[in-house]
């Protein structure tokens, strides 16, 4: 079904069509064992939600939001898990998989012999990372609503936010992939990603840290993402969230530009 609908939705002549053909190629690979990857990507945030949100949350009890309201710990953690899973999904597709396709499968060399251009490959891969991301996010939001952690209306507002978060991290991941030289360096990315996951106001409000660390934390992309998702889930939404959106859009634009340039430099020597 997705094979039929998606490419048609983005079927502009030229660039859009060519980028969609790259996305379509990825959809075709789904017929193999790829669904295993998809299932694991969905399970991860759910496991965190249950073990930490519900399990550890039972010990912690309620937690105070910046405006003084008290919410259950699971309610506090759930939107952060949504943001984090959007990040993880986008990064795993655009770092590990993207790097492998570029360097080892030499997939893009073949594609570049066709009318498709490097920036269109980047766009197509990013769109694919988003297809994955939307699947994860939707499933997770359904669980949040079912557990009473947010309302259906708020969940609907969080879905486009999750898509934006995924797009921004996808573009970032792609840029990193074009800069990286070996598989070993991926360990660094994973460490960085894990540090973001732990400290971006996900499990503990950023106000719990010393002032200087708060500054560092508040400029990281996952903090901005968590802030956006949490505000949409628990309220209130204000100017800070407009800043979050702007930040993520800028990251997306920058990442995509750099990645497209670097790919042209590497593959079209």
């Amino acid at each position, binding site marked *: 079904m997705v094979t039929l609908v998606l490419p048609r939705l983005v079927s502009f002549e030229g660039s859009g069509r060519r980028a969609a053909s790259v996305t379509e190629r990825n959809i*075709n690979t789904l017929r193999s064992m790829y669904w295993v990857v998809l299932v694991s990507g969905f399970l991860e945030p759910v496991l965190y939600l249950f073990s930490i949100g519900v399990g550890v949350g039972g010990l912690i009890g309620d937690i105070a939001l910046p405006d003084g309201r008290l919410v259950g710990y699971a309610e506090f953690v759930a939107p952060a898990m949504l943001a984090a899973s959007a990040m993880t999904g986008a990064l795993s597709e655009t770092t590990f998989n993207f790097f492998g396709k570029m360097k080892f499968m030499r997939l893009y060399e*073949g*594609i570049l012999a*066709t*009318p498709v251009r490097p920036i269109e490959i980047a766009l197509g891969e990013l769109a694919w990372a988003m297809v994955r991301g939307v699947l994860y996010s939707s499933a997770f939001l359904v669980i949040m609503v079912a557990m009473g952690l947010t309302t259906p209306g708020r969940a609907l507002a969080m879905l486009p936010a999750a898509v934006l978060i995924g797009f921004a991290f996808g573009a970032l991941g792609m840029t990193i992939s074009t800069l990286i030289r070996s598989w070993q360096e991926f360990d660094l990315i994973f460490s960085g990603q894990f540090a973001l996951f732990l400290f971006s106001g996900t499990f503990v409000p950023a106000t719990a840290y010393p002032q200087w660390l708060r500054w560092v934390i508040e400029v990281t992309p996952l903090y901005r993402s968590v802030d956006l998702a949490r505000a949409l889930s628990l309220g209130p939404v204000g100017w800070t969230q407009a800043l979050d959106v702007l930040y993520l859009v800028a990251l997306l634009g920058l990442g995509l530009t750099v990645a497209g340039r670097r790919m042209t430099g590497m593959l079209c020597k």
Partner: protein
Amino acid sequence: MDSLIHARGLVKRFGDFTAVAGIDVDVRRGEAFGFLGPNGAGKSSTMRMIGCVSPPTDGVLQILGMDPRRDGPKIRAKLGVCPQLDNLDIELTVRENLSTYARFFGIPRKVARQRAAELLDFVQLSERGDSKVEPLSGGMKRRLTIARALVNEPEIVLLDEPTTGLDPQARHLVWERLFRLKQQGVTLVLTTHYMDEAEQLCDRLVVMDGGRIVAEGSPRALIEQYSTREVVELRFAAESQEPYSEKLAGLGERLEVLPDRILLYVFDGDAAVAEVQRRSLAPASVLVRRSSLEDVFLHLTGRTLVD
């Protein structure tokens, strides 16, 4: 003249290294054109420039009347590329490799499926259509790569060393398919360092060495110009072949002493052998053969190993 590929003073530099040092090439519609040369001669760099994936550093390059710097996607839509190393999609089946690739050209799904079936038939892989790429033999992968290069019904097919690494059966099958393409009017441009391949397939070729073109013409014309009609290979039992070169003086147009044998480039091989016997030199073995493109190639590019 209908020149599909037109290059004048074409240059490709990578930093300080000059891969292609100013070449002039014209490829006409319907011909099979070859780039010959040892490793590092600049063949692949030239092919990548023609394939519009590598911008020329300097010079004029026109493909199908268009400028690769500006019209890359438009030109690539009409090219078929078979790279030196197979870069098939290992996550897809044999058939999907063709139909998915067709989609990159914007070919409708139905047509893509139909064409995939036809091409699998053309390269004799129909029975392996639903197999993954990985278990295929080298020859099968090469055939699939060639089929993939044809999926957009290209006007020009670029083949970078199409049969390197294949066993003789697979090579002959590939040659036969390429010959059929040529008969259908497809323009073929190929690189090779196999002389028999060039003689089999090419109407016209250029010999490249060190980024330059050192000779140009049909295989026959090149042999006539740079070699003699026949070659006599003499092997003497002695440790060194060198002392015999003096005794063979005046025989033939050119003489080449190799560590293990002496080559005499002559018009009439049998007459030369008779003369060798008259001078009562007794070689351990004698071979008279026709001059080949390999003789031309080694004469022009030298016997020194280039890596």
